[in-house]
């Protein structure tokens, strides 16, 4: 990330995020949708493209992540590692992309396993390394 452009308008950042999500989709079978977003709620990349029900996922995920951070701060229990919403027909997993002002959020079908969450974490780590490398 160069800082010259906002991440969601930086072609290099967008390209890296698109590639990361494509890689995640290839290894995470329950993945229904995923998004890379800035902490302040701008969408950098999303799969699948154009799905209307995920239109507000970036801003909602940003708010959700910030509320989770506020709870962690209030309770003084360290730092927020990841956030899971376990719903009756699926789940949402949100985690930061390294120390960058970005997050990766995945929407999973019901029946996901811990390995799927690990894959999401590995994808976020790989994307963080890529964005740190000029």
């Amino acid at each position, binding site marked *: 990330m160069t800082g010259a452009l906002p991440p*969601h308008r930086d072609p290099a950042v967008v390209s890296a995020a698109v590639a990361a999500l494509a890689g995640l989709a290839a290894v995470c079978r329950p993945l229904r949708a995923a998004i890379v977003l800035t*902490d302040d709620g701008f969408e950098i990349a999303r799969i699948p493209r154009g799905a209307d029900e995920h239109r507000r996922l970036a801003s*909602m995920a940003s708010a959700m992540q910030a509320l989770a951070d506020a709870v962690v701060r209030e309770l003084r229990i360290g730092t927020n590692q990841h956030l899971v919403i376990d719903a009756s027909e699926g789940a949402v997993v949100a985690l930061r992309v390294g120390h960058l002002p970005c997050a990766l959020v995945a929407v999973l079908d019901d029946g996901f396993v811990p390995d799927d969450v690990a894959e999401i974490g590995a994808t976020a780590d790989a994307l963080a390394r890529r964005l740190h490398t000029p």
Partner: protein
Amino acid sequence: MPEHVILFAGPMGAGKTTAIRTLSEIDVVSTEAANTDRLQADKDTTTVALDYGEIAVGLDDKIRLYGVPGQSRFDFMWTILQQRAMGLMLLIHADAPNPVVAVGDQLGAFLDLANRGGLVIGITRSELGPRDVVDRVRTVASALLPERSIPVFAVDARDYEQMRTMLMALISDVEERAEMMRASR
């Protein structure tokens, strides 16, 4: 006095978070994220979910202060937080691109609350905007809500006394509206 839930709304950079920090008697719960788009607003952070503060009134009662994010991409938070609110403190910074249009847009977004609850408008950074901005905002607000007398203040969101005066005017309006509602039933 019953418990009051007050919503602080307005565009990004209007001073909502600052106002709640100025007024609150507890540590404010903030959900600020790094502002990654400095082309939109030149500030380090921006609220992405809510701000929350409290003021105690007497022994048991509280005024709960909720601030909403300014950007419309977070409008789902506007809907959620508007439901329980009883009063709207609308803040507009005078050096916004078009503060008078912003007042109309914001009142439109929070019209349900403005119609049923209390309402005050605060113009922040008024020294940096058009000289007649307060009068123009008053005119627009009156046109949108012709049956209401809406207090419009030029305020500094960092000034406790100014913000407290504005808040008390809002609480008074909330109670007046509640009394009118009761009387009309």
